[in-house]
Every structure is written in C-alpha cells, then in structure tokens.
C-alpha cells in the first residue's frame, strides 16, 4: 500500500465509497452501475483538480514521499551497462552519493547522484542521502574522470542537505562543497543536473553547477528547508507550510526566476505512481538537453555555464542618489 498524503484524503474517501458500492451490487440484485459510473467520473475530475492545483506544501510532501524514485531507480530505467564506481581515493566511500559510468542512448556518460534509502536499514547505510565530504570528493573525482574521457556528466540532486556532523566538519565539509562549485565551473564537458526530489542548500548545489538545470515538477530546491526557514524567520517550525510558500522553492518558482531550464512533468499524483513512465519523461528532456549542448566547444560550454550563474541575482543597480541618501 502506497503511503497517502494529507491532500489526497478526499480521493481516498471517494475511492472507498466506490469500492463499497461495487461490493454491495455484487452481493444483491440491485443495479447501481449508473451511480458507480457517475462516481468514477467524479473521482477522475477530483483527481485532476487536486493534482493540477498542488500547493507548495503538497509538492514538498510528494518530494519527500518514501517511495519516490531515487537516483538508482532512474539509473536502472534510463541507462545501459551501468557500472558503479566507488570511493574518493582519500578517505572512504560515501554511500549517500552514488556514481559511475553507463550508456545513454548510445552515448557513454558519467552519472552521479545523491542516494536515499528506501527503508530504514538502507537509509542508515546511506545516511538518508546526506553526504559527508568524501561523497562530494568522490563526485569530483568522477567528474574529472568524465572530462578526461570527454563524457557528458549527468547529476541527480536529491538531498535534504550536506550532513551536519562532527566528522563532516573535521574533514572539511565546507571546502568539499566549495571545491565542487569551483571545479564544475571549469569542466570542459556538458553537465546536466536534474533535481529529482529535495534540493537542500549547499549540499544540493555541490552537484548543481551545470550547463542545464532541470527540476521534476514536484521537486524542491531551496536555501533551507521549510521547517528551518520557519524556525529562523518566525521561531516556529510548525509554520513550515507557510514557509514553503513564502520561500518560493518549487519547480515553477525556480523556472520563473530563470534559475532552471525545464520543468520535467510528473505522472499524475507524483513520480512514485509510475517509475517507468516517469523515467520516460526524464529521458525526453535529457535527450534534448544533450542535443543542445553537444555542438558547443569546450570554451563555449564553460562560457555558457559561467553566464548561467553569473546573471543570478535580484537587486537595484540604478538609483545611486537614493542609496547615498539612505546613508546620510
């Protein structure tokens, strides 16, 4: 049984009513087929209505759905010949980030992504998809390797954030993230990053300095979790729902800000309803993204990436007089 989200309650109720009626008719001579048909129609309409009018907090819940497809799910759906490559060659292998080489529609690529677990045991092993520095350093090693062999790099972003732990600080969490931002800027191969779940802060961005950044329709990308924002801004984590709206963290928000290229549609109700079909949506966008980038020279790729991030910012560059007045 797939976990139901709070905004899906009306659907669950209607569905159980329909089931009830069906059971009733099968046990008696009464013909209720017309009523059942009407209810089915109502269900379809209600489903569309709910899933087409998702509020930011609904999307947060879908993005966090325990059965939401992970990096490895998409790797198995989208790529052939995947070989996982482990370790940062310095400290260890961080299971919160997976990476390797594979074939996408005939092209060898490097694939790297945050990896959550599907159950408690796997989540503990993978630290809930929250990397340590060695995870980011493994990612960078694989990116440099991709550059050497001129393979495009595909990154899947899916993390609540970099792990806030003692060992992570001792081994330089800040430096590991910062290094990736800088090194990704200079890579001579196409980089495509796709936010598939939660894109939490610097820990997400460390796989995100790409030529193209796309987001699944119900994924989020933010400087801080809604709970964190609520507790800092209003000293109350319970206001997370309000923060999810105020912070503008959904795919449509980021598209509007010109931070991402494409919103990848999700199957009705969220990616977890049909992984296979969802992968097809990803494949289409990946293919067109790679096509757009394949003719760019090494210099043009670096230049395009530079300008993509260089232009992000909202401020006023004009009113000098007004600024100086305020300073008096």
């Amino acid at each position: 049984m797939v976990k139901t989200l709070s905004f899906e309650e009306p659907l669950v109720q209607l569905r159980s009513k329909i089931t009830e009626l069906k059971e009733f008719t099968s046990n008696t001579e009464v013909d209720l087929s017309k009523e059942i048909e009407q209810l089915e129609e109502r269900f379809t309409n209600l489903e569309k209505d709910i899933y087409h009018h998702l509020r930011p907090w609904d999307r947060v819940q879908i993005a966090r759905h325990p059965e939401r497809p992970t990096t490895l799910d998409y790797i198995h759906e989208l790529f052939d010949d995947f070989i996982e490559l482990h370790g940062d060659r310095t400290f260890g292998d961080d299971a919160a980030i997976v990476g390797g080489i594979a074939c996408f529609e005939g092209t060898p690529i490097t694939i790297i992504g945050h990896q959550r677990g599907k159950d408690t045991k796997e989540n503990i092993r993978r630290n809930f998809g929250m990397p340590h520095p060695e995870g980011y350093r493994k990612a960078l090693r694989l990116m440099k390797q991709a550059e050497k062999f001129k393979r495009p790099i595909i990154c899947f972003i899916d993390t609540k954030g970099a792990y806030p732990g003692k060992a992570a600080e001792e081994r330089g969490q800040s430096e590991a993230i910062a290094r990736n931002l800088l090194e990704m800027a200079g890579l001579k191969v196409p980089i495509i990053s796709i936010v598939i779940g939660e894109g939490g802060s610097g820990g997400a961005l460390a796989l995100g300095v790409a030529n193209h950044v796309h987001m699944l329709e119900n994924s989020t990308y933010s400087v801080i979790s809604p709970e964190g924002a609520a507790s800092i801004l209003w000293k109350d984590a319970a206001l997370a729902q309000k923060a999810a709206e105020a912070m503008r963290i959904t795919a449509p928000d980021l598209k509007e800000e010109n931070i991402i290229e494409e919103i990848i549609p999700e199957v009705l109700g969220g990616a977890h309803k049909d992984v296979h079909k969802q992968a097809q949506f990803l494949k289409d966008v990946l293919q067109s993204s790679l096509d757009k980038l394949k003719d760019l020279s090494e210099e043009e790729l670096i230049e395009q990436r530079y300008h993509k991030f260089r232009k992000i910012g909202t401020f006023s560059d004009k009113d000098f007089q007004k600024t100086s007045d305020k300073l008096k």
Partner: protein
Amino acid sequence: MIMSIRDLFKKNKPNKNITITREQHSVPEGIMTKCPECNHVMLTKDLQKNKKVCPNCQYHHKMTAKERIDDFLDEGSFQSIDDHLQTVNPLNFPGYIEKVTSDMQKTGLNEAVLTGVGELEGRQVVVAVMDSFFRMGSMGSVVGEKITRAIEKATELSAPFIVFTASGGARMQEGVISLMQMAKTSVALERHGAKGNLFISIMTHPTTGGVSASFASLGDINLAEPKALIGFAGRRVIEQTVREKLPNDFQTAEFLLEHGQLDAVVSRHEMRKTVSTIVKLHVREAI
C-alpha cells in the same frame, strides 16, 4: 556625519565613533569596553589602538569593514566600488527592507560587504571585506554581486583578490537566489584562477554556512584570525544530530588548522605583513 560613502574612503579617516555595546550595562557606554573573553575592562580608545585585540588575552574583537580597510591597506589608497547597488525584496518578506536600511545607517555601507581597489605595501590589490555588523554578514544578491564584480575587477587588472570573510551564511530572506550566490562567486573565482591570478581568503569571526562553503574556502591560500569560528553547520545543529558533546575548540581556526583545512592562523598584528609577503611572492616578474 554627513558625507557620501565614496568621500569617506577617499579620506580614509579612522572611525572614532565605534562603540562596543556588548555588556554595556556594566561598563560606561562607549568609553570603556569589557572583553567578552576574559572580562578585562579597558579604555575603548586603547582597544582601538591595539587593532581591537584584547591586550590581556589576545581576543580578536570583531572589526567593521571600514576599520579593516584602514588597518590593512596602505593609507589613503582605497577606492570603493559598487556602493550604489541596492538590496530589493524578491520574496516580499515583511520588514526586510527596513532592516537592511537600518543596517545601512548603522554601518554606512550599502550592504554587508565593502569592495574596492587599493594598495598593499605599494602593490595593487582588489579587496572584499565582509561586515558582520550588517545583517550578520549574510549573503544575498547584493553581497554576491559585489564580491563577483570585485573578483572580475581583479581578473581584469591581473591583480590579487583578497577577501576577509565574516558571515553567518546565506541570507534567508532572499531564498534560493541567495543560495545561487555561492555558485556565482565560485564561477567567477574559477575564471580568475584559470588565468593564473592569486586569491587569498582570510576568514575572520564568524565564517559559517554558505559563505564558508563557497569563496571563503577557495583561496589559493586560506588564512584565519586566531579563535575565529569557522564551519559549515551550526554547533547546536551538530550537537542535536550527533548527540555528543563537541570539544571546546570545535570549529575554531586552530581546530581547522589541526585538521588540515587552513594554511595558517595569523594574528591581526601580523596579517598585513604576512599577506603582503604572499602577494610579493606571487609577482610574476623577478622580485
């Protein structure tokens, strides 16, 4: 004091109006300062003369961006840039612009970083100095833009870029745009470095979060002031996560040095000379 921010820096006057307000109830406001580290009470004037370093315990009190410029660069050499950029309110957070405006008046800066071109023992450098008295030095669009423009200026001049960091991290009120400033400053640093230019990062108290996880950690040479708090995640968050007591020196400059994350911890009294020597050793012609 009525003068534009540009005028302020041309004259390069030491700012005599700085008052340390912490624990002011126990000492006369302004005239005396009590060291938060060792409780030593001293004349504010004497603390100022000693580069705001406590003469009793060597605690490095926070400096404003202007005090840092005065202390660090050759006298009268600093010309600020981009003082006109202005913060807007992209997410329409109630009270945000009012808070920024109030900090503008308090600090005389347009945002939490002061950038410009100056000289260090006669050599041209581009500097960015963050000011933790302005919204805790947090990085939003204007801070990201000013730092990026300063880096680009340094690249254009083939001059060393020197940053003094002091920041609580990303500016929450600007949402994901503030996160993206980490990427923006980093792509500019990549370009600066790819052309063989020098970048020196000097981390001062405190340097955390998104600033720590971007340009602050990307120096060709990373220095820090003694005892400065430097880290990615906040101490309380970590304590809640790991459920163990953290050592007292956790996330201090000395702790980072011991763990291989810094090139050196340099006292404020030695900073100008040390950085100047580093710059000298990177001059491309024979010295």
